[in-house]
């Protein structure tokens, strides 16, 4: 039996739908990719997955993509990084909900925590499973899952 929370095609659909719906941004999953540029200069959001199984989902993007997502979502690219991070938090909240809904039969309770955001090291160690995505401009977006 597969894990109740996993990064299969359900996360791809959630990421693609959320990026398109909130920021009019096309994105596709890539097999692997160099994440060095995301190691330190990243903006990230993380959210606890409570149900259908415990874990943590992280969304990380580089500075340029973070700014582009802010502009596409709010209509402006402001000097305040807090707004940029709040866009990422709301984006993660939205895609995590879509993903969780798709993972389990309808009627199964799903629950998430409140998103937290930050900049810099997003600490996706070996315990994290990664899904890497790329925009048309070759900007990288990473979703990382840690099962509790």
């Amino acid at each position: 039996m597969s894990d109740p929370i996993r990064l299969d095609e359900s996360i791809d659909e959630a990421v693609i739908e959320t990026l398109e719906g909130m920021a009019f941004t096309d994105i596709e999953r890539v097999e692997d990719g160099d994440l060095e540029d995301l190691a330190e200069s990243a903006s990230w959001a993380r959210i606890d997955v409570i149900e259908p199984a415990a874990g943590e989902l992280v969304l990380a993007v580089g500075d340029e993509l973070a700014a582009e997502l802010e502009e596409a979502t709010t209509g402006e690219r402001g000097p305040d990084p807090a707004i940029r991070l709040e866009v990422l938090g709301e984006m993660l909240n939205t895609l995590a909900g879509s993903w969780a809904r798709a993972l389990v039969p309808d009627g199964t309770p799903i629950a998430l925590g409140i998103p937290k955001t930050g900049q810099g090291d997003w600490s996706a160690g070996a315990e994290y499973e990664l899904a890497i995505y790329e925009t048309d401009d070759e900007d990288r977006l990473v979703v990382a899952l840690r099962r509790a």
Partner: protein
Amino acid sequence: MKTILVVDDSSVARKIVIRCLKIVGHSEAEFPEAGHGQEALDILREREVDLVVTDLNMPVMDGVTLVRKLKASPRFQHIPVVVVSSLLNEAAREKLRERGVDLMVEKPLSPAGLSAVLGGIEGGIPE
């Protein structure tokens, strides 16, 4: 002029809801904002509100608790409530229906999705 209370812990999400509401014909409305359910109740006690649009997953007081309090209050139970959330599977929808909420729309929010739900308010948004 209509007053539409928008409740979400994310200011970005509130901005998206307000933008969608303006696109679907409520550009003249006033949009007081609350970051959680308790703040929403505080606003409702101070001013007349015609419609509440709320998220579910919020700190301090979540959307389900807010809805329960609104529907239990003789003063507020007539106010239509639209729930906007990424967590609206059938289990969540059923829980909300039991609390008297029939108007629900999934995130990511679109003007079309919001418009379809607002069309379900019998007699339109009251004033």
